[in-house]
């Protein structure tokens, strides 16, 4: 057993290099301009991982400045050039560029494209029982628009005047005038162009996800039998489809204001020594448009992670997810409410206070379905039989971040309390936990869980464990202290606090946070090594390594184009039949007909079993 295993490993390692030999697809068609959803998912994943390294790296540079004000960064001069001055000190304007690009990259390129792009693409056809996406070509375009957008954003990092530097929200007028900040010159232009391509990519993907889920489910896969992952991806795609176009509108008007002399967002401005002719526009209009996307975007980032977690927690607790219908209901409620809470980002923007009250009510309503989700996760663990795979650990970590970060939202959604907390480090702590770290953990959990399906090999478990514990502890050490700094009123996006009496404290805590951030970032290289090494040299994966019920584990270990070699299996039950009383095994795959499991059927299932029509190819398929 052992020796053959190792030999198998060697064989397949070399086998991978000559893949194109026995497939009709050429290298370019298979790996580059692929229309296969699995390959596109991997393209999204690897691009997302590269972006995560860049986005995380940028944060380390500005954390160095915050933790050690005026630190000598001469060693970065080869990369950053003029942005490091003669004494080796980071330029304050480039500090803002770093903050801006960190936010843009993490929110859009890592947690939207990297998370949704990867797992929606990978899992939707596999879990609903489809050969591929509704349109493989659109799917391919979706990736290549994303790639183009990535290239443009990446190049903008190296412009002489710097990348966009007005914060990831790029509020005008700051983002309009290069006289206001040099990043608002060519850097901002490239930011806008890149984002338009990015949104095109998201929409192409979203249309595909939605039509695939609606039209291409296999026989028996009703909506009430969909795994929660698919529900999450489906709802996410709908949110994206409704909200991203608004960002295009916002960006387009910004382009007009910047380049064609219109006054959508500009009024009564004196800059660069002259009074501009623009009258009648409103910078607040941009904020409304931006946050109409911006707030749903939070859920675009978070819902897929929650869907992935639902699946992993149920599988590894060996229990059905608690409150399947409540989980779907709360996701629908969150999706709906996410469109009518945006102005809570604008309580102190000069918004009419009455609108502020309305949005405070709506915002705190959205906390209810979120709370339901958290309680349901915890109850799923209750009386489970928990297997701590790395994916499970990351999922539990996600639930912890979701609670910690979600609770601070109750402060910020309350407009009276937001007056003092707005734009302080309290906000930074809040969204880094609930949206940043939680979604990032969802991404990692998904990679650990579905890596065997993606690459036919296992990730190294022990490295996964070390990676989890370093990251989990690290994330708390980085973001928890920021609450204290925020309660003390420290404003975000400050290059240094040294000139303030009120903010003279916490120097040591900032140093501590920076050290923790560097260590946490360093721990991710363990994952990178594990990931890339295991693609080629990991242990061969069994067909269903986690004893899971969902359809993707009925495909061959390395599913080819079309996913199932024979007919697509039909589905006879919901995806959470774990530890069903009476059943021999502690899981019953979705492909097992109810009529075959009379010993474990619930009363209403017994009824259903009588009228069940079993299609034959299914059983043949299972032997694969």
């Amino acid at each position, binding site marked *: 057993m052992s020796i053959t295993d190792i030999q198998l490993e060697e064989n397949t390692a070399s086998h991978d290099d000559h893949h194109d030999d026995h497939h009709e697809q050429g290298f370019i068609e298979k790996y580059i301009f692929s229309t296969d959803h699995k390959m596109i998912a991997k393209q999204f994943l690897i691009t997302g991982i590269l972006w995560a390294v860049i986005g995380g790296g940028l944060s380390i540079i500005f954390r160095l400045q915050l933790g050690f004000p005026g630190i000598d960064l001469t060693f970065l001069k080869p990369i950053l050039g003029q942005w490091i001055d003669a004494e080796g000190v980071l330029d304050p304007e480039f500090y803002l560029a770093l903050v801006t690009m960190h936010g843009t990259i993490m929110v859009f390129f890592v947690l939207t494209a990297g998370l949704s792009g990867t797992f929606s693409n990978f899992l939707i056809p596999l879990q609903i029982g489809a050969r591929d996406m509704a349109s493989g070509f659109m799917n391919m375009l979706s990736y290549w628009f994303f790639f183009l957008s990535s290239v443009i954003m990446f190049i903008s990092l190296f412009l002489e005047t710097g990348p966009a530097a007005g914060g990831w929200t790029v509020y005008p007028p700051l983002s309009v005038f290069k006289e206001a900040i040099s990043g608002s010159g060519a850097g901002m232009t490239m930011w806008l162009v890149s984002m338009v391509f990015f949104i095109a990519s998201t929409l192409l993907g979203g249309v595909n996800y939605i039509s695939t889920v609606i039209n291409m489910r296999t026989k028996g896969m009703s909506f009430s039998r969909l795994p929660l992952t698919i529900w999450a991806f489906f709802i996410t795609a709908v949110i994206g489809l409704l909200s991203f176009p608004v960002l295009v509108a916002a960006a387009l008007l910004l382009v007009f204001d910047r380049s064609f002399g219109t006054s959508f967002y500009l009024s009564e401005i004196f800059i660069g020594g002259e009074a501009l002719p623009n009258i009648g526009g409103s910078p607040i209009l941009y904020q409304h448009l931006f946050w109409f996307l911006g707030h749903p975007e939070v859920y675009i980032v978070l819902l897929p992670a929650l869907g992935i977690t639902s699946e992993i927690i149920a599988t590894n607790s060996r229990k059905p997810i608690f409150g399947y219908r409540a989980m779907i209901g709360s996701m629908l409620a969150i999706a709906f409410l996410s469109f009518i809470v945006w102005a809570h980002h604008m309580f102190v923007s000069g918004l009419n206070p009455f609108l502020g009250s309305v949005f405070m009510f709506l915002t705190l309503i959205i906390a209810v379905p979120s709370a339901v989700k958290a309680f349901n996760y915890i109850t799923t663990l209750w009386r489970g039989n928990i297997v701590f795979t790395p994916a499970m650990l990351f999922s539990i970590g996600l639930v912890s971040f979701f609670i910690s970060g979600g609770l601070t939202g109750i402060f910020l959604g309350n407009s009276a309390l937001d007056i*003092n907390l707005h734009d302080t480090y309290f906000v930074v702590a809040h969204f880094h936990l609930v949206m940043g770290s939680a979604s990032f953990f969802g991404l990692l959990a998904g990679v650990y869980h579905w890596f065997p399906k993606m690459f036919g090999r296992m990730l190294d478990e022990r490295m996964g464990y070390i990676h989890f514990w370093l990251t989990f502890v690290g994330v708390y050490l980085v973001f928890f202290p920021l609450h204290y700094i925020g309660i003390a009123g420290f404003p975000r996006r400050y290059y240094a606090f040294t*000139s303030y009496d009120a903010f003279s404290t916490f120097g040591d805590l900032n140093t501590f946070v920076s050290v923790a951030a560097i260590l946490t970032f360093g721990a991710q290289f363990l994952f990178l090594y594990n990931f890339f090494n295991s693609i080629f040299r990991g242990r061969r994966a069994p067909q269903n390594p986690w004893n899971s019920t969902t359809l993707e584990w009925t495909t061959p270990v390395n599913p080819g184009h079309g996913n199932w070699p024979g007919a697509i299996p039909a589905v006879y039950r919901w995806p959470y039949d774990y530890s069903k009383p009476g059943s021999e095994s502690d899981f019953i795959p979705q492909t097992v007909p109810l009529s075959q499991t009379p010993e474990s059927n619930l009363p209403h299932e017994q009824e259903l079993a009588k009228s069940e029509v079993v299609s034959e190819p299914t059983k043949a398929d299972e032997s694969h």
Partner: protein
Amino acid sequence: MFNLVIIVAVVLIIAIVYTIFRVTTLISIAKGESSNNVPSSNKTHATLFILFLIAGLGGFFYYSFGGLDDSFVQPIASKHGVETDFWFWVTMGVTCFVFIVTHILLFGFSYKYQHDKDRCASFYPHNNKLELIWTAVPAVVLAFLVLTGWKIWTDITGPAPEEAYEIEVFGYQYGWSFRYPGKDGKLGDYDYRKIDKTGNDLGIDLKDRASHDDFISNQLHIPKGKPVLLKIRARDVIHSVYMPQFRAQMNAVPGLPTKFWFEPTKSTADMRIETGNPDFNFELVCNKICGRSHFGMKATIVVDELDEFKDWYKDQEAWLKLNPDYLSQVPENLKEVAIISAELENIDNNQSVGNSSSSF
């Protein structure tokens, strides 16, 4: 040389760690451990969660109560700040309770229900009663917090009292100016097209007679115990007036005048005693990203006792008096009034005023 040694050492350590991993992987494959679905370290992780819970909560309580040198909260110096802080700490109590209980459950269940091959998980797909309870309870608690927040919010953002002192706050890259209404108690008009680099930084519109006696300060002087209404605007990009000790914040938006009113309850002198810091000063800081020197955009706030404030107010000279050249911008029919209200008659050389204005 030293760096080289470090690099070599790091490389060697990585190589050793890598070798260990590779060897143990091969050993575990050889032992056939991989065929087991439950990882051998299952118990370790369950235990680590409990340790993390204890260490985490311990650290949290230690740091929050006493681990810090001083209170990390900014002292409160405004009337509404007492209320918002009270509800801040009520919310903190509620959320901390939920935070602790849910984490005890999350990590506690993880430990208690770790895998045991002799046990079977219980098939427990839903319980409508439970779900109803934890939908309703958060809804009620949140409704309570929202209603209290709403009441405070409407008070804070409601109209300022009649007797409030009006002060204009003007934000620009990178600093603040404050314009006071002068003796007539009325702020004059402004027009951004009147802004120039030779003296009229705020774009004061001298066609309005109320503007003639307005004066400008680079510090924000406000009286203790009296409501103050800030009328806020910006010159170039969005800034934000943030005064942490007064629990006050409002954006300064070009083209969209905003306002915020509050009542300071402690003077600078009071605060110097309270904090034991003889150099204490209130600061107004910018809290909306505005460019290169965003982090240095601040102004000093001086809270005086009412008498001191009134004395200071009286001693200030009108902007027009300090910039008599601008008299030429005053319409002919208002010139005389302007000279009186700006107290320009004190300047004996009226002639020179005429001369310099003719140079425009």
